């Protein structure tokens, strides 16, 4: 019926431009829609107009509210026509217009009539339309018909009702849940798709009832499921049941046989679904994996790209956890490198890079080289990242991998791609000492012809750090000085800084560096000249070989141990005054962002970049708050503020939480109180703290809150004194004390007389972890090495049976209150051992690093080896005492880690610190 709607224009080139909707305009079509009102309806013409309207909507045209309403009312007139084709178009149009509730009423009766029509097609479509536009009240009216429709003998009608049920479950669950008997019956239907839709609906109705889902799965896995789609659903539900039933390590997994049986189904869709479900089982064993891998391997050589893609994508995921299981597919995988579909080829390569062994690396690299030239940048980045991890896995192969990276670095590519390569080379240089010299030269060559200012400056900076430490630093000078001649001002400036670093660190080069730096004094750019002048002066001016003193070295090389964001905020708030800006006042705490990192594992700040940007932390807010209170002014610098600890149950009359602020010789409790009773005003609010269980603490002052109106949070403070620098611990009981005044809810006036009242709060504890700042290091290995083993302690502990390795690791991390580094807090599924790297700063600004190796011994016994290094000088600190405390610690660990107070662990540090103090005093 949609015939050419516009007359053919003979002059026009038919092939190229002809469209029946050429020159269509909304206004004109809306005019045309008046034919819907004709007393004598012309179904064909009406259909055409509807098609035009739908075309407009489909092209992104939108109708105003008035237009839509007008069209809708006109369309409803068309229910008079008995033409089936037109009715279908009317249904479509109504769905597209999605009328408002008051408009729906107009078509309801017509649609309900159609719903009970003898024509199945009417029934099916009317059900779908009505359910799409209906609301709860109307639904109860038609519920009876829908229930009938679900068990209708016509599969199209039944499916229409079931699918509508799935949609309605989102908005009106209580109604749809009443249909479960009918849905249950439909699950047994002989029609394939009815079964599929019924199963989907039944599962959604029961999804919160584990037992019911389990029963459903059990009965269906024994029976026959007709449609492949329904079978896929069943597989999904089965793996859900398996997951929730918890892993019973011993014996066979329930339903595994069913999944394995599905691998022999005749539909590929089902085979794949089952194979994927098996690979995603929690703690899947290699015996369980094998049949799934075998069918996926067959798919790899399929003629259909979709099958190959699905298989290689799944195998790629498996390779992350079970590389050995996938090695059998390597030959098929290698042939996929030349696949037409570049997504498949990339997935194949990255899988191979994960599963490959040391001997196959060279061959693989040869194949990849050919492949790299004809894929898009986004794929290349994936490959580069895979090569980086391969190189870290097989450090001996660095030569060929580094060569590969430098080759692709020379080829054409966008910024993101080049950055990925440079980052990879930098990481390899850092982690593989042998690769340093060749890597640096590759980078030098790259900046000779680099179009990205950002990369050039980053590389120059990196050269300045690493170059002077090499055997022959002078060979880099030429590359660096060339930048001063050939590049833009930004690059020139960073080249000047790099030159200065060479001059400062390599005394033999100093005179030559001076000559070069002097030439930079005539640069056209201010920044370049400024830097040159600065460096010439700091390095000692006259060009003679003088010992560069420590301050200069610190200035040039001392890593800026601050998050840049914190420094920036501090500088912004600094007001010019007599007092110079104190860099020590900048907070060092980096807010950890484990979630964000997990989401983007590829984007860890591993490359050239600075440490992870810290969001403006709550610490700043606390610091501001505390510094505004004069009583706390002489407490010194805030060391750490804890996370708020709830002291009341949720939804009580008064909600209170507390923050512990740790200073060198003071502790301040900040109680955040909220009054949740509308007709009360609290005055003179204080917290009475009983510190009898905290011997080392003495209360020095309490700062009450004058008034606490309804729903406006306020703070009261209590401050304590404690021995300086000592990580004293203890338990405090709290009582909220205040005067209650009634408030007239209508006038808002407060009564004059108040009643004194008290409210018991929960106890607050100061624990040793409160004295530990979570401060990460960007390169744990370097930090660990540079700290040296002079002040190292190693101890081994048996932790006894634990739920899982991950749980044990988490417990220990929380216990120590230190910052996990390099993502080591995450324990891969199923691993039997794990090493966790932790870093922190202990009160007194003592940097502490810990390396903890966990191992699972026997069925569930976890053992750990704890190595701690610290800047602390108290090496020989009271060995006996420490050992004694450690023994206590060990015993506790063995008994029950969870209930262990960190105290016992921190005694170890405590002793060192007190020893240190006694020595210095």
């Amino acid at each position, binding site marked *: *019926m949609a*015939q050419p709607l516009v007359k053919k224009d003979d002059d026009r080139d038919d092939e190229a431009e002809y469209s029946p909707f050429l020159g269509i305009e909304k206004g004109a079509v809306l005019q045309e829609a008046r034919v819907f009102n004709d007393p004598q309806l012309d179904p064909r013409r009406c259909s055409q107009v509807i098609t035009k309207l739908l075309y407009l909507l489909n092209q992104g045209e939108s109708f105003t509210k008035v237009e839509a309403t007008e069209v809708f009312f006109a369309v409803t007139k068309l229910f008079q026509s008995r033409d089936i084709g037109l009715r279908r178009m009317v249904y479509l149009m109504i769905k597209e217009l999605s009328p408002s509730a008051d408009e729906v009423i107009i078509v309801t009766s017509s649609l309900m009539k159609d719903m009970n029509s003898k024509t199945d*097609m009417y029934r099916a479509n009317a059900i779908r339309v009505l359910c799409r536009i209906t609301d709860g009240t109307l639904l109860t009216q038609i519920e009876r018909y829908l229930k009938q429709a679900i068990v209708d003998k016509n599969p199209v009608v039944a499916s229409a009702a079931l699918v509508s049920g799935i949609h309605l479950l989102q908005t009106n669950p209580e109604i749809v849940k009443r249909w479960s008997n009918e849905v249950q019956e439909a699950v047994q239907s002989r*029609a394939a798709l009815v079964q599929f839709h019924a199963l989907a609906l039944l599962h959604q109705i029961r999804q919160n009832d584990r037992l019911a889902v389990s029963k459903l799965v059990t009965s269906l896995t024994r029976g026959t499921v007709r449609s492949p789609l329904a079978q896929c659903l069943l597989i999904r539900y089965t793996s859900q049941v398996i997951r929730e039933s918890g892993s019973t390590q011993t014996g066979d997994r329930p339903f595994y046989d069913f999944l394995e049986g599905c691998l022999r189904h005749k539909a590929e869709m089902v085979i794949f679904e089952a194979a994927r479900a098996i690979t995603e089982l929690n703690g899947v064993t290699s015996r369980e994996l094998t049949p799934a891998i075998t069918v996926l391997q067959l798919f790899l050589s399929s003629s259909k790209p*979709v099958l190959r*893609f699905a298989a290689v994508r799944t195998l790629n995921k498996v390779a992350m956890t079970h590389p050995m299981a996938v090695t059998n597919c390597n030959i098929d995988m290698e042939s996929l490198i030349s696949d037409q579909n570049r997504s498949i080829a990339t997935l194949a390569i990255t899988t191979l890079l994960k599963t490959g062994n040391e001997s196959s690396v060279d061959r693989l690299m040869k194949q990849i080289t050919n492949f790299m030239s004809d894929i898009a940048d986004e794929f290349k980045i994936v490959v580069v990242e895979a090569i980086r991890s391969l190189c870290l896995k097989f450090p001996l192969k660095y030569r060929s991998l580094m060569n590969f990276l430098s080759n692709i670095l020379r080829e054409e590519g966008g910024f993101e791609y080049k950055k990925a390569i440079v980052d990879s080379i930098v990481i390899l240089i850092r982690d593989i000492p042998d690769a340093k010299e060749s890597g640096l030269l590759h980078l030098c060559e790259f900046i000779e012809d680099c179009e990205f200012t950002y990369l050039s400056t980053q590389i120059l900076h990196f050269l300045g750090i690493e170059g002077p430490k090499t055997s022959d630093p002078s060979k880099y000078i030429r590359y660096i000085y060339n930048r001063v001649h050939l590049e833009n001002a930004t690059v020139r400036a960073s080249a000047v800084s790099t030159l200065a670093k060479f001059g400062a660190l390599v005394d033999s080069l100093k005179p030559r560096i001076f000559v070069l730096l002097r030439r930079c004094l005539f640069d056209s750019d201010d920044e370049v000249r400024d830097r040159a002048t600065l460096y010439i002066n700091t390095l000692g001016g006259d060009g003679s070989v003088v010992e560069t003193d420590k301050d200069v070295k610190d200035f040039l090389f001392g890593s800026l141990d601050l998050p840049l964001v914190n420094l920036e905020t501090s500088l912004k708030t600094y007001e010019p005054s007599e007092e110079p800006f104190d860099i020590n006042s900048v907070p060092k705490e980096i807010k950890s962002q484990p979630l964000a990192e997990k989401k983007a594992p590829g984007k860890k700040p591993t490359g050239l970049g600075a440490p992870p940007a810290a969001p403006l932390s709550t610490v700043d807010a606390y610091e501001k708050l505390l510094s505004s209170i004069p009583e706390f002014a002489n407490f010194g610098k805030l060391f750490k503020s804890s996370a708020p600890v709830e002291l009341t149950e949720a939804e009580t009359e008064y909600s209170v939480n507390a923050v512990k602020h740790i200073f060198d010789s003071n502790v301040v409790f900040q109680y955040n109180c909220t009054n949740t009773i509308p007709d009360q005003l609290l005055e003179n609010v204080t917290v009475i703290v009983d510190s009898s269980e905290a011997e080392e603490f003495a209360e020095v002052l309490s700062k009450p809150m004058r008034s606490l109106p309804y729903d406006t949070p306020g703070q009261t403070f209590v401050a304590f004194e404690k021995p300086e620098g000592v990580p004293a611990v203890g338990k405090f009981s709290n009582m909220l004390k205040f005067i209650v005044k009634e408030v007239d809810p209508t006038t808002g006036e407060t009564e004059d007389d108040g009643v004194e009242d008290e409210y018991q709060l929960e106890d607050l504890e100061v624990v040793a972890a409160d004295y530990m700042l979570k401060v990460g290091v960007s390169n744990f290995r370097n930090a660990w090495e540079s700290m040296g083993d002079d002040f190292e302690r190693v101890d081994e502990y048996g932790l006894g049976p634990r739920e899982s390795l991950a749980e044990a690791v988490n417990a220990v991390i929380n216990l120590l209150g230190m910052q996990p580094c390099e993502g080591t807090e995450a324990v891969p599924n199923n691993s039997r051992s794990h090493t966790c790297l932790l870093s922190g700063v202990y009160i007194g600004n003592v940097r502490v690093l810990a390396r903890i190796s966990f191992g699972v011994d026997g069925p569930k016994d976890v053992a750990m080896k704890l190595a701690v290094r610290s800047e602390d000088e108290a090496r020989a600190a009271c060995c006996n005492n420490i050992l004694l405390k450690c023994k206590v610690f060990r015993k506790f660990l063995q008994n029950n880690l969870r209930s262990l107070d960190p105290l016992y662990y921190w005694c170890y540090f405590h002793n060192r610190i007190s020893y240190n103090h006694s020595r210095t005093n």
Partner: protein
Amino acid sequence: MESCPLIKNILLLDSEGKRVAVKYYSDDWPTNTAKETFEKAVFTKTQKTNARTEAEIAMFENCIIVYKFVQDLHFFVTGGEDENELILATVLQGFFDAVGLLLRGNADKKEALENLDLILLCLDEIVDGGIILETDANVIAGKVASNSLDAGASLSEQTISQALATAREHLTRSLLK
């Protein structure tokens, strides 16, 4: 992955990436501009591939897209990144073949636009609000072309020749007018 397979959208574009007919079932692209940007990106990414004999596949913006071309028509079906690729491919094949049947094997842009009502009805019969209704091309085409069929006859029991005959009749009628 406990959920029912869901389709995010079905696109039918021409050889320049312009819309012939599209249908979105998810909220991932709230505005028309977002939709058009997505279509353009998908089109550019796939236009150089050869998806004429077998359906091809790509990943894009956390979506899996399966696609197939014939003449100057480009068919796309999009699903979430965890979706079973083969289910999406089945939907695509159903749509592709049904359009072929409805356009009497003459699937090109001109024919598709001239029978846009059939294409829209076809989309309506394949997926309802993201949930797969039917994937068998013969059944889909049968349902779309069943306008003049006897009221009592069950749609799914129609043979394909019947469906085609109806489609043909329908088309001749509309073309000869």
